């Protein structure tokens, strides 16, 4: 996975988040869930976006807030998960 790929993943996730929640800007490490800025469907919408965009399936073992708490965390999760089957 090249740096360019990683940047592309981060940009795609950033665009999705910014199209879904009302924030003027998004810090890479801002906690999305503790800040209360996301609506009640955001978690499953983000999951669906990741599954569709990066052609992967999430399962029980992926349920960890550390994987999705911020833009950087979500990007790192996608990079780790890429190519690994879901449990």
């Amino acid at each position: 996975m090249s740096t360019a790929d990683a940047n592309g993943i981060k940009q795609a996730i950033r665009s999705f988040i910014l199209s879904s929640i009302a924030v003027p800007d998004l810090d890479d490490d801002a906690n999305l869930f503790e800040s209360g800025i996301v609506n009640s469907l955001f978690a499953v919408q983000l999951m669906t976006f990741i599954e569709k965009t990066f052609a992967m399936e999430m399962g029980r073992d992926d349920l960890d807030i550390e994987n999705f708490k911020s833009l950087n965390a979500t990007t790192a999760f996608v990079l780790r998960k890429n190519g690994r089957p879901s449990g």
Partner: protein
Amino acid sequence: MVEKREEFNAFVTRNVAPFAEQWDRDQQVPAGVISQMAQAGYLGCSLPPEYGGQGWDIVTFGLLNEAFGRASSALTGVLTVQAMVSMALLKWGTTEQKRRWLPPLAKGEMLGAFALTEPGAGSAMQSLVTEFTGNSQGLVLNGSKKWISCAQFAAVFLVFGTLGGRSVACVVPKDTPGLRIEPISDLLGFRAAGLAQLHFQDVEVPSANLVGKPGYALSHVAPVGLHYGRISTACSALGLLRGCFEESIAHAAMRKIGDKTVGDMGMVRSLIARMGTDLEAASALCHTACRAEDEHRPEAFEKTLMAKYFTSRAVVRAASDAVQIQGAAGCHGSSAVSRYYRDAKIMEIIEGTTQIHEDILGRIFVDQAGGCGTSTRAD
């Protein structure tokens, strides 16, 4: 797709429509018709073939629910709840849970029920007081659930509660000691949907029955089940809306008042115009939602909310107008529209009230407009 629609309509015409009024009066559906649905593959239609399901897409699932909803909202509730439990398990169950529970659910050998609502927590999911505690053997469940559709004939319940302050979902078989099922009767509508209250007193369940991880039941497990429940309910309400429309146009065309028909009256045509237009709009919204889900798009959730929100409100208007068009005859139990009128109101309550939909959708729309990605503000 046309073939499937014809198959569903033929099944409903033969096995559901002639009996729906009697089931409503009896406040129960016979086991025989559920067996027929199972044999036809309808109870596991959205599950993959590897678990014994039909693997149908959601557009087809929507058509199935619409066809059933045209004749019996109560019986369609079985399709709704079965999908809610099955799809939540498919998404978040362990390999062992899926191997154990999905095949009998897919074949209809087992019915499930989605035990989320509590006497003190309806749409306010965060207020759950049903509690799991841990012991050396596994988990102990105490609490109560209310207004649970199909609970009178379900073999397993997907029960939501808390464990150590974190939300959890857990499969609980109906024959587990300490679980008491109290039927609820005399509902306004959906009278044959087998609603019940569940009482859990020191019910012991294995930890292996937890679905998803603790802390994610309300953010991830319940939304998946509710999503399919809303698709099913929206399409069921669409079928009921079609029923209101068809009964109304038939009455308007045939019923004579003097030398004119009811349909010759301008005010009746106004009601029918609104009903028919709502029907087209609802159909488009439901189809769009089903397509979005088939394409696994994130916006499928909000499209489904819109479809359920619009269609459930439209069917309440349509059922009221259908009764109005028939006059006194529409107020009697011998007229189908009197049942439609009672069932229609339930559509605005189940799988999230109209007000909850407005709250969620309103926030989604505002967030989308306010987000940096799509903002049009001049600041």
